[in-house]
């Protein structure tokens, strides 16, 4: 099925989210839709899936103009969406989840014909190489498999066009590779795929054509073999972007963070970290690589005082931090950029200014005794907003209204606004656009060059390799290897990440 959007315009109060956008995807082809956060990708897809009505413009299916009043009509026309946040019932099994709303029935009572549904699920998963246990419960499945269930759901509804919204955001590198395989086999089978992302490498790898959106407009449509990462980044951001951060030689000084044989339990009371020993020196970046869920979260929480250590010893600047509270640790000069910015790092319904002093409100001059000093807080926040180029209407704007990149900048600016001995950064650029990633990487390297010790935890291999002066790989709660940056190749680190050593 050929799908075409012609001159789609959608206005929100104060924002022209889509400005005469035209895209086209041919039968059996993969269209990569590339753009930063806020470029208008999601609005466009919500129009295509019937959630929004465009102010003007046409949707053409096989050359015929169509209008979708609600998602049901879009689905009927053969357009299937896989959203970034999955829409699955955790306690259902795969067959039930896929068939939900389109259940085959039998008998006079119209009971659910599970075996018919199951047969079709199995048939579809074989046909497209979607490896899923049809009887597994959703809540027991890893994220990557849940995504396959979502894809199966769309295929089950006879979708000829499959729209994937930021599908790799939640996947490990391995799972992403598998997803690409699935996309290729879907396209080979005649399905039209629209792949929305902000990651350059992914569109280059999997798309047949690439349309780049910037600020609600089409910035260009290119073919992957005729373009480069640099050109795409340029189209996306509208200026030249340094894709590889310039990182000068590290000059490691004395040991700042010291972990000795640390054991930590997770929420289920199982040992998540099994004897980690690690040193991070002043003026160096140690990047911890690893597939999500190998103990990185627990490690960071232990260092920052959020999680009790079972046994072992931890020190910052020679001072023990075993059993220290988060505030104590932060008072010792530890900056923490947490894993999930809106869950752990910010309070969305509070203002930029309030968030800016979230961990320093109790200190002079931001408060005297019990009284908050609004003026000092406002001045402090304004300085940060300027210095870090945080795009916000004012410091009184709720943080939840900022874009992801600007939210992250609020955190980074806050954490770097006080004297820093050690930076613990967890997934510092997850879900951010190229421009913001570049910016945040540069700031982190500045801190290193100013003499801070930096510990970065990331599941993005590119990030680990770009930043790490030394790369430590975590697997199953242990550090299975520490490589100096010269030896840390994608292959070497990837093998260790998979537990091969």
């Amino acid at each position, binding site marked *: 099925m050929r799908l075409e959007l012609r001159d789609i315009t959608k206005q*929100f*109060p*104060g*924002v022209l*989210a889509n400005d005469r956008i035209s895209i086209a995807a041919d039968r059996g082809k993969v269209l990569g839709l590339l753009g930063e*956060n*806020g*470029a*208008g990708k*999601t*609005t466009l897809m*919500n129009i295509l899936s019937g*959630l*929004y009505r465009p102010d003007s413009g046409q949707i053409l299916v096989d050359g015929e103009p169509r209008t979708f009043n609600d998602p049901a009509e879009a689905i009927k026309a053969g357009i299937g969406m896989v959203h970034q946040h999955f829409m699955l019932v955790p306690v259902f099994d795969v067959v039930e989840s896929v068939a939900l709303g389109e259940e085959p029935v039998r008998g006079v009572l119209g009971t659910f014909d599970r075996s018919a549904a199951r047969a079709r699920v199995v048939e579809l998963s074989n046909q497209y190489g979607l490896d899923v246990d049809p009887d597994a419960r959703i809540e027991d499945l890893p994220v990557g498999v849940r995504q396959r269930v979502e894809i199966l759901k769309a295929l089950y509804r006879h979708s000829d066009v499959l729209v994937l919204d930021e599908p790799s955001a939640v996947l490990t590198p391995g799972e992403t590779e598998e997803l690409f395989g699935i996309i290729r086999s879907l396209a080979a089978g005649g399905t039209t795929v629209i792949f929305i992302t902000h990651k350059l490498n992914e569109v280059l790898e999997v798309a047949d054509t690439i349309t780049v959106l910037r*600020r*609600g407009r089409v910035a260009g449509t290119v073919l992957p073999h005729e373009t480069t990462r640099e050109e795409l980044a340029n189209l996306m951001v509208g200026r030249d972007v340094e894709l590889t951060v310039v990182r000068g030689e590290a000059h490691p000084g004395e040991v700042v963070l010291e972990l000795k044989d640390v054991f930590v339990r997770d929420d289920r009371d199982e040992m998540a970290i099994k004897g980690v020993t690690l040193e991070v020196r002043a003026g160096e970046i140690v990047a911890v690589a690893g597939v999500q869920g190998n103990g990185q979260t627990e490690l960071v929480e232990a260092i*920052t005082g*959020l999680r009790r250590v079972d046994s072992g010893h931890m020190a910052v600047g020679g001072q023990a931090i075993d059993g220290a*509270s*988060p*505030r104590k640790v*932060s008072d010792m000069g530890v900056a*923490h950029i*947490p894993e999930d910015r809106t*869950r*752990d*790092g*910010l*309070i*969305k*319904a*509070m203002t930029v200014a*309030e968030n800016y002093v*979230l*961990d320093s*409100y*109790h200190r002079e001059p931001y*408060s005297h005794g*019990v*009284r*908050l000093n*609004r003026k000092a807080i406002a001045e402090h926040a304004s300085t940060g907003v300027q210095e870090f180029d945080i*795009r916000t209407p004012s410091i009184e704007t709720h943080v*939840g*209204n*900022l*874009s*992801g990149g*600007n939210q992250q900048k609020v955190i980074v600016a806050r954490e770097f606004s006080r004297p820093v001995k050690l930076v613990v950064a967890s997934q510092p650029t997850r879900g951010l656009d190229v421009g913001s990633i570049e910016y945040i990487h540069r700031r982190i390297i500045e801190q290193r060059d100013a003499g801070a010790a930096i510990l970065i935890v990331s599941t993005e291999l590119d990030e680990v390799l770009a930043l790490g002066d030394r790369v430590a790989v975590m697997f199953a709660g242990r550090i299975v290897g520490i490589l100096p940056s010269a030896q840390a190749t994608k292959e070497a680190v990837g093998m260790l990440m998979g537990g091969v050593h």
Partner: protein
Amino acid sequence: MSGLRRRLRPLFIPALAVLSAFLVGSIFLVLTDLKNIALLPTDPVHAVTNAFGDVLNAYRALLQGAFGDPARFATAMQTGTPKAWATAFRPISETLLAATPLIFTGLAIAVSFRSGVFNIGGDGQFVLGALGATIVALALRGAPAPVTLVAALIGGIVFGAAWGFIPGFLKARTGAHEVITTIMLNYVALQIVQLSLRTDFLRQSSSSQPISKVLDFVRVPLLIPLTGLRLHWGFVVALLVAVLVSWFMFKTTKGFELRSAGLNLTAARYAGMSAGGSIILAMAVSGALAGLGGAFQVMGTVTQMSNDVNSGYGWTAIALALLGGTRPGGVVAAALLFGALNNGGHGMQVETSIPLDLLVFIQALVIMFVAAPNLVRMIYRLKPKGSEPGAPAEEGAAA
């Protein structure tokens, strides 16, 4: 100008909600008036005009019951006698008196909601505050009245705070859900009061009912020295406490911690705040406010401790806190509205023989309309808050 408009904006939807409640309420006033309905087949014109007149009459009686009769004010101005003034001012005095305990408990619940804990135990904290004040007052009987009064008020605060602290502590330490524990502690509080009222120390020996000795020696001073006006200084203190709560929540470090914990406990913890500490503090402050309300009620309004000192103020407070958008100013406004409805309802019942139940019905409608702001927006064709439901925030911020 725009500053004023922005300040008034949060009042807009509640005001429309109140209006809607009265409009819908009038439909029911008409429907329950069998006399006019019986008239409908034979004399429809009169039936409609009568019904219309009855509704206006009822609401006029309600307003006069709540705020006073203009005619009485005119008489008072002409005669100038204290008695005439007292008669004129009595309805509004009673309205403010009825609002007083509601302001305290409403603030208590608003503080807890803002802090992310659901204190459903306002009732228990209120009666224990009243009990604490009674015990302290009787223990200090004979001391100078102002000393006894202040000590008894503090007693009310302490007892209420303690009754809030317990569920707060249980939640912080063991994770016991405060909705369950506070509800259960409401029953415990009632039994403690019953038990205490059996002791010779508290019990009015001349009465067979569980009721305390009369606390006439620590009466909260009356606000207006006219006979028949019961409004006491507790109302003024309630307003001051609202200002204090507002200052505490929005201008102090502890208030900042409570609000942070209420909006995102994880982020508050990550920022180095003590999650358990915030929960305990929020519950204790909440309990203290309700307890102070109980103390004023027993020493200002009713003068004798019994289980009747409370009439569901802790429950009404939940509606008030939501109605007032958990802002202290909003809570005061909501409490005044409910005070007026309660008190005016009595006036309406006396004058028009419309049952008080219809007033409760209208109160319920007010809450319903406030709880469903989109319904109000739809009725009055106001622009919805976001341009389109689910308009993505990140797209909106891109401008």
